[in-house]
Every structure is written in structure tokens, then in C-alpha cells.
């Protein structure tokens, strides 16, 4: 725990420098990769605690409504039930990321940059209008599309597992446009932190 906290502080410092260097947020296509996360080596563990100031760096807080206390104190189940990671929605028969989807992923990426211990599963889901069989692959495509975008933002690929549930787990049991739109998604589940 102590080690994780220290490395978090170091990371926060590094990230804030990167953020400052980059200036204002730009579309994330060719954003420079942040330096690799420092490994939690025994050498680090022997360092004195880092000064507390950088935590307060206001430029680091991502624009999302969840107070940090709620995120850090919640159990994994609680965290996921009221997830700070936004689902990404898709058009019918499509795995293309819309501008809106990219915005949601940008916000998720900021959170994942901030909570570097989080391992996340990206679930691909489809609405009931495709076949059960083909939807397994379409759901995979959606999860993979979201993952590739996050990786392009510098989130390490090994923190992002994908799984497709096809149309087996609809979020909305309805049979109308609104329900279908809710069910065509890449859904984020935090599996470790």
C-alpha cells in the first residue's frame, strides 16, 4: 500500500509535468506517450515519503463528478456499480468510434492515467437486432476498438482486457430504439487496483 502510494505520487508529479508541457487538451490522435510508469522496485520502497504538495495539483483533476474519496474507499463492486468509467456507445452493426465515443474514452483515459493500479476489462455488447452468433464477434470488435483508442492515448495494453458478450447481457431489456442504443456498448469493469 505504502509503495503504491509513493509510486502514485511520483506518477502524479510526472503526469502533471507532462500535462503542463502539452498545454491545452488536443484531439488525442497523436498524443506523445507519457514516460513508462516507474516500476515499484525495492529501491523505491526505501525512499522517504514524497512531499504531499503535488497531489493538490489542480490541473490533474479530470472533469468527472466522482469525489476522490468515494473512488478510493469504495469496494470494486461499489466502484463498478456506480462506475466513473463511462460506457461507449455504437451505431447499429458498427464498431466505429463516434466523436461522442472518443470524448467518453478521453475522460476514461484521464481516470486510468490517474489511477494507475486499475486493471480494466472492456466488455463488448450488442443489441438484439443482430444474430446471437455474429454478435459475439461484433462485440469483440467494439471492445477492441475502445481498447485500441485507449492504448493510443498511452494506457498500457496489459491493463486493458477485452471480452465480448454479444447480445447475451442486455443492459436494457426493452425492444425499442432507446433500449437498443443502450445495449450497443463497450462497458468498463474495474477488475483490480
Amino acid at each position, binding site marked *: 500500500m505504502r509503495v503504491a502510494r509513493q509510486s502514485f505520487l511520483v506518477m502524479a508529479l510526472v503526469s502533471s509535468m507532462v500535462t503542463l508541457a502539452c498545454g491545452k487538451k488536443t484531439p488525442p490522435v497523436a498524443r506523445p506517450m507519457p514516460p513508462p510508469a516507474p516500476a515499484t522496485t525495492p529501491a523505491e520502497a526505501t525512499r522517504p515519503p514524497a512531499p504531499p504538495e503535488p497531489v493538490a495539483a489542480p490541473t490533474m483533476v479530470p472533469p468527472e463528478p466522482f469525489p476522490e474519496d468515494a473512488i478510493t474507499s469504495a469496494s470494486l463492486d461499489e466502484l463498478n456499480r456506480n462506475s466513473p468509467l463511462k460506457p461507449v456507445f455504437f451505431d447499429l452493426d458498427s464498431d466505429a468510434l463516434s466523436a461522442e465515443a472518443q470524448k467518453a474514452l478521453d475522460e476514461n483515459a484521464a481516470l486510468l492515467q490517474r489511477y494507475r493500479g486499475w486493471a480494466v476489462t472492456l466488455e463488448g455488447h450488442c443489441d438484439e437486432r443482430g444474430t446471437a*452468433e455474429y454478435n459475439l464477434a461484433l462485440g469483440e470488435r467494439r471492445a477492441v476498438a475502445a481498447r485500441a483508442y485507449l492504448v493510443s492515448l498511452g494506457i498500457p495494453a496489459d491493463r486493458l482486457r477485452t471480452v465480448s*458478450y454479444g447480445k447475451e447481457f442486455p443492459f436494457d431489456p426493452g425492444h425499442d430504439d432507446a433500449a437498443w442504443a443502450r445495449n450497443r456498448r463497450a462497458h468498463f469493469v474495474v477488475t483490480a487496483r
Partner: protein
Amino acid sequence: MTKPTFLAGAFAIGVLAAWPRAQQLPATPQQPTEVVTTITSEAGAAPRLAVPDFIALTNDAETVAIAKQIGQVLWDDLAFEKEFAFIPRDTYGSIPRATSFADVPFNRWRELNADGLIVGTVKKTGATITVEMRLYVVRTGVASFGREYSSASARLVAHTISDEIHKSQRALNGVARTRLTFDSDRDGERMVGTVENRGVREIYTADYDGANQRRITIGKTLNIAPRWSPDGRSIAYTSYRRGGAHIFISNIFDGTLDEVTEGSASGENWLPAWSPDGTRIAFTSTREGNPEIFIANRDGSNVRRLTIHPGIDITPTWSPSGTQIAFTSDRSGTPQIYIIGVDGLGLVKKTSESYCDRPTWSPAPYNEIAYASRSGPGFDIRILDIAAGQTRTLTFGEGTNESPAFAPNGRHLVFTSTRAGKVQVFTIGRDGKNVRQITRAGTNLKPDWSR
């Protein structure tokens, strides 16, 4: 499943004794070991059968109930293939009930215009039911076919009689002893340890007529898309019990489980399909990054990639000869049905419709592929005659209809439909007639029919 014991073993012994001789001496035809007369009607018309309740040889309520049940199940089994016409059961009341094979009133059955009459006796000894059955030519009062069966299951006896009558009288492989499998959420169980409140799906089996529905997995997760092995002893399916999707085989009579795909390096693996000889399994895997069709041995060894395309390739099905595989690919922009040789050569696109999936190759003698085709808001079942290059439609927008699979004699299909509300499993004739609802509880999906 306990197979009925045939007390009349003369037929089998005769065949075995004849075997070496038949190879040496092609000259003289063998004496037939069993004389079977075929029940006939007027030229062109289906023979008319009467199937009264079987005769209980003891008067206890249990035996009487079994005798009645066998008659009814046998009627349903025979009617399913539509090879015979039937004298309606409600007209039998005027005819005196036989108490043994000795007092069958053939003249009265003749008045009802029956060509054939099935008479059976039932005796119960402990848990064993012993049934003697004869199929009579009503005109002559001579038995054209007769056997004795013993089994613990009255339904299995009736199914066996039906299959043997179809075989001996019509040279047809009946499906009365075949079974269905599908995935269902009927038990309402929820995933454990997950963040969303999600219902699990488990694998179930049922007799071809929907009786004896049983659950065979306890994964507490998604267990979906089951497929019968050709010998009917195992079911391959897609399971998420390891987190991602993997191929498992339940050996349902041994109670053991085999894993065909293992480890995170193997990607996601879906929709196993058995080769006709049961030695290999085709499936879809993302192990090389993109959904492609692979073939592996039953034990997961010797994995070989069959398709090479950045599009989605999924839902394989084997040709009856085991030399080709039909599958779904969206390489043209929308999901369509393709055929490829198991050597990876000879790729041919077979459909150009809005959206096609779940191809299922029919057994011989039909050379057809059934699939689900988008037809407006939902899907309908269509059948492609491969040689003629023509398609025909089996369902016409009664709800959405998906996931067809053929019965082993190619004359029926099992599929799912929302025509009765939630998604349920139905069977249908290959002519689109005789729709029968198999499941009613929960939602039931992705069915398959045993060989």
C-alpha cells in the same frame, strides 16, 4: 440413456453369421433373416395406421398408465414424420379392446379403413417395462413386424418402436430417439461476484419432442451455443467460466469436462462445430488478433487456421463429408455465408442478402445449408440448395427466427423464434410446416439437434 434390450436377437446373430460368407461368396443371395411385409394403401396414398393404447397385461394403475402413454407417444413419434395417415384415436371407442394378440378384432379395424394396426402388450417387472409389439396388416390379420423390448423408460420404448417401424416400413431413419440441446436462463440464477446484475445461461438437453428437459452445466456464468458430438455422448459449447470465452466439452454420460482451448494467449474462442467423424472441432478464435476460423483436434491439439481475412469470420459448420466448412464472414461489408475447403482452398461466397448468419449444413441426402437471414426488422430461416443455387424461405416474419440446425435425417430443423413472446426453441419441417414449440420457461437460444 439406457437403450432397450432386444430380446429377439436372431436378427443380429443372423447378420453376424452371414458377414464372412457374404464377402467370399457373392453368388447366392442370403436367406432373409427377417421377413418384413410393407403396409400399403391405395396407390400413392399414405398407409393408414391405427395406434390404440397398448394392452396392460396386469391391471395395476401403473401398468395401465404406461400402456396408455406408450400408445400416445408412439402416435406422436409416427405422426412427426408424416409417412403414415392415422385413423383418429377418438374413433377407436366403438371397437372392443383386445386383451392379447389372440383377440384382435381385425374385421372391426377393417371397417375403420385401417391398413395397418399396431398392437402392443405391456408387463412391468420391478423397474423394467417389457413390451411386445406387432404391426399387423389389417386386411390379412398377419403381423408384418414384431419385436419385444425391455427398458426402464416407457417413452424410450415408444421412440424405439417408432424408429424401427419407420426403418422397416419406409426405409427412413426416424428421429424419435434423437435429442436437442440449447442454452437457457430459465433457472433465473445470477452471476456471482459481478458488478452488474446479470442472469447466467446454462446448457440444457431435451428429447426431440421437448420431453425430459435437463440442465447439464453448473457454470454460474455464460455457457452457450451447445453442439452434440456425432456419437451423442458429448456436447461442445462456449463457456465464460475462465473469464474469456473458451471451448469446453461436457461428456454427459461420464460426467467429465474437457477443455479444447486454454490460456489467455488463445484469445476468445466461440461456437465449436464437430467434424462429422467427431475427431475435430472447428471454431472461431481471436488468438491471432482477429476473429478467424480454426480447426483443432478434439483434445485441442494440432490447431490450424483456416481463414485469412481482416473481416470477421465466425460460425463454422461442416459439410457431411467433412471436406468443406461453411461459415459467416463480413469481408464483403455485411455478414454473408461462404464455403471453404478444410484445406483452406476454394473459397466461395454463397449468399448476397442483407445479413446472413448461423449456416448449418444438412445431412445427406439433402445438400442444403440453412441460415438466418435478415428480413426487415428481424430474421427468418432460409435454406440454400447448394447444387441448384436456389434459396427458399421457411418462416415469414412470425417474430424473429434464428439459429437453425438440422435433424439427423434432414427432414426437420430446430430454431429459435420470438413468435410466442420471449425467445424459445421450436422445431419445423424442412417444408416449413409443423411448427412445434419445445421450450416455454425463460429464454432459450442457439439450439442443436443430435445426430
